[in-house]
């Protein structure tokens, strides 16, 4: 019983951490979506050249939807999934976090090798989604194996 209770507490902590990471992701992508639609330069340490170049590159949108808006939708989904209890919530979080991390890896590859510019906000988002993947994996691994 003690270990079951400990495990439930652990899963609760992971859900809280995931919700926190989702809120951080929502903040980053909402800011980038706002600067995109307002047509202004994103604030970046040491100038905004890299962010400008990445945000206005031809890879900054998928079928005319800005990547920041896709991120906003993904992180919002992650927030809702992270508060869901049970297996369904755990697997949904894993699906969103893994998809986000893989797509983020592709975007980072484009930044380094194709666009040749780094956007600090995108790096921050990549770090957030990778941390979310770690938490999502721990949550699935921690699911009870007997009923």
């Amino acid at each position, binding site marked *: 019983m003690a270990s079951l209770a400990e495990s439930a507490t652990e899963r609760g902590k992971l859900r809280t951490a995931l919700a926190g990471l989702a809120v951080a992701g929502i903040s980053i992508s909402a800011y980038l979506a706002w600067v995109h639609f*307002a*047509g*202004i330069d994103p604030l970046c340490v040491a100038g905004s*050249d*890299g962010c*400008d*170049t990445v*945000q*206005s*590159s*031809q*890879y900054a*949108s*998928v*079928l*005319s939807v800005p*990547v920041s808006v*896709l991120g906003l939708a993904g992180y919002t989904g992650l927030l809702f999934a992270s508060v869901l209890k049970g*297996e369904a919530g755990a*697997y949904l979080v*894993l*699906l969103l976090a*893994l*998809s986000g991390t*893989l*797509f983020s890896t*592709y975007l980072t590859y484009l930044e380094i090798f194709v*666009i*040749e*510019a780094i956007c600090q906000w995108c790096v921050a988002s990549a770090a957030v989604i990778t941390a979310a993947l770690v938490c999502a994996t721990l949550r*699935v691994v921690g*699911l*009870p*194996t*007997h*009923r």
Partner: protein
Amino acid sequence: MTRTNAAGSRRVMIALTVAAAVLVTALLVALSQLEGGAGTGSSEELYSGIPQNGMTLGEADAPVMVSIYEDFQCPYCGQLSREVLPKVVQEYVRTSEVKLESRPMAFLGEDSLEAARAALAASEQDLYWQYHSLLFENQGAQNSGYVTGKFLDELAQQISGLNTIAWKNGLDSDAAGSELEKVRSEAEASGVNSTPTLVVSGPGGEKKLVGAKTFEEISAAIDTAGGS
């Protein structure tokens, strides 16, 4: 359910989740590539049949003039050129309602200057706008030194009808230097201090649009300037 069965079922669920995530990502990457490839190779078709005179595109007697103050290295100018201007050309320039005038400012660095000189050399043959589109479609990282002689040559070779020998001779001409100086003075006089800035003027008045505007915003300014 036994512990072994539950563990097996978990492995299946994890495998399904990973497969679904890979599929979602592959779809996003494919769509992103589709977007990345779009827009290139279409400038010939876009400008086909539209008169050009130096840096001006469109019929000389078009009632509305849209002057675009831009820098070939400015990312938002690139965004405007790739995503919005083609629609303005199709809807307004091709129908002789608007003429577009590019005002290259070349203030961001050496790459801007070299790119502007190359575009101005193409303007001597009234092929400025084809070169303009190619420069923005192939825009690199700011002040990375991407605007090399080889880069400019490769763009020139993509423009059908451009005499590349005459174009090369025009690269270092004094005319390009004085044209850029003229644009700089005009920008200063008009209070233009950032790119892109669009000045939309016509019988209905004049409006200045600062930043990467949408087609709808530019369209509204054109309609007002046109007096409608």
